[in-house]
């Protein structure tokens, strides 16, 4: 992964931000890799966490002059860093799943064997994708279910 993306994730960790990876990267982990335009970060919408996100982005070097802590407390507000495909979207809400519901089920994966990063669980991702309901979301649900099914179906004979 790009060094800067890892640096941003490290900054979130260093500032003890409560977040989880959702979107295309989460689908790729739970099913198989697919193209995505950005790394989606779902954050807990609380005052303490919003301040931690703001500090993390500032330490990362993002220009914060037009951004405030309150921006991370608005449900439909999205802050995007960078441009696709090297972009990070920071989301306070996602469809169908609350942060608190999903937090206990997050799974920690290492990015490039270096940066520990919490990912939304496959079950919560399916709930989110079904609630979002766009064609890509439904295709993602199918991929996750197929990946699960493949583990239990018989291997083909040589």
């Amino acid at each position, binding site marked *: *992964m*790009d*060094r*800067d*993306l890892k*640096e*941003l994730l490290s900054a979130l960790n260093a500032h003890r931000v409560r977040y989880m990876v959702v979107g*295309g*990267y989460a689908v*790729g*982990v739970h*099913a*198989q*890799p*697919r*193209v*995505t*335009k950005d790394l989606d970060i779902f954050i807990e919408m609380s005052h303490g966490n919003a301040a931690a996100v703001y500090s993390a*982005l500032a330490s*990362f*070097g*993002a*220009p*914060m002059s*037009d*951004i405030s802590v309150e*921006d991370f407390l*608005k449900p*439909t*507000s*999205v*802050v*995007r*860093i*960078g*441009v*696709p*495909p*090297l*972009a*990070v979207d920071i989301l306070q809400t996602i*469809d169908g799943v609350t942060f608190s519901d999903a937090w206990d089920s997050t799974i920690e*994966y*290492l*990015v*490039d*064997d270096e940066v520990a990063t919490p990912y939304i669980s496959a079950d919560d991702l399916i709930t989110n994708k079904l609630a*979002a309901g766009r064609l890509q979301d439904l295709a993602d649900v199918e991929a996750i279910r*197929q*990946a699960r*099914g*493949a*583990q239990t*179906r018989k*291997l*083909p*004979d*040589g």
Partner: protein
Amino acid sequence: MNKSVHKFASFQEVKDEEYRYWQSISPSERIAAIYEHSVDAYRMKGIVADGQGLKRTLVRFERAPR
């Protein structure tokens, strides 16, 4: 190239084998592959992103209600 030969009875078996492959490698490798696939796809569209880093640009926008 792995020159082993597999015979599949259906397209479903082919897809299953693909999913089993991706799930057999580490999550870290899958994450790296997502990044590489995405950068490669954008390169085919004429957008070269690798090596440029995450631009320190930041925008805020509102999602439409759904």
